[in-house]
């Protein structure tokens, strides 16, 4: 479904398609590492930060 569709949509001969795929994957990883994962880490799954809880100051 998705993978064959991507393969069909990419222009050029097979060798070119492979190169295009690699560039596409690199772009996806870049977007994930730069924006998506930091957002997940801060808003959805905050990692333990190692502080003892300071009581709210008055």
């Amino acid at each position: 479904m998705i993978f064959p569709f991507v393969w069909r949509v990419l222009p050029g001969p097979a060798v070119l398609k492979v190169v295009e795929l690699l560039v596409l994957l690199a772009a996806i990883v870049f977007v994930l590492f730069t924006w998506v994962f930091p957002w997940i880490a801060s808003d959805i799954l905050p990692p333990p930060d190692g502080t003892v809880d300071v009581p709210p100051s008055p």
Partner: protein
Amino acid sequence: MTAHETLPSHRGARADGARRDGARRAPRPRQTVGGALVSLVAELLIIAGVGTGLYVAWTAWWTDVVAVNEQTKLVQDLGQRHTSGTGTEHHGPAPVLDEPPEVTDVFGSMQIPRFGKDYERPIGEGTDREEVLNTIGLGHYQDTAMPGAAGNFAVAGHRVTYGKPLNQIAELQEGDAVVVRVTDAEQEFDTWYVYKVTDSQIVTPDHVETIAPVPNQPGVEPTADDRWLTLTACHPMWSAKERFITHAKLDYWMPASEGTPKELSETPK
């Protein structure tokens, strides 16, 4: 007939066959709705699996790469001059820098020989996760004492991810040196503080008395001799369930102009 003559025609026949096969396949075989759904789900699962794997790689590896790079730069930005020779150990009242007013102000660095010879990390003001712990690394609990002052210089840091400045906290032993250097170029302030580890404890995160001016004795006024340092990190690793706390007491201080603490050139036993 020679082989040379037969070859081309043979090839031609094969190509013909292939073309005919292709033609026969031209109307693509109909996929049933169920089959399409199954392959869609399978592909989505593959994507989810790869995505999860990438997320793990990002937390466990990439955040360290970025943060260590950033933290090394922050230490360099302090403009600490290289010091040489072993200076005098001062045990009296120490010079103390005023607490920086802004969260994220970097006012010094920490070296712990037990963590390795190259271990040197910046210390920033405040314990905000995003602004301090994820970037600067070690964060000074606001309103706790500054290094050298009576009271408790309390510092938090990640034990995993984001440069993991306190990754090896559980390896600290009694008597290990924790060397803090506070530098303020504008005020020409540059002082070493050498603390020695006294004890470690594992508590739940609500135990704020661990960073009290006199550790674990909330409400008690620190005497001139109560110059403590406390490190807090996660425990167990990757969990937020408990905290690993290590206390250390000031052994001596030394102006950076006089030399380098001998602990930094020794290898811990």
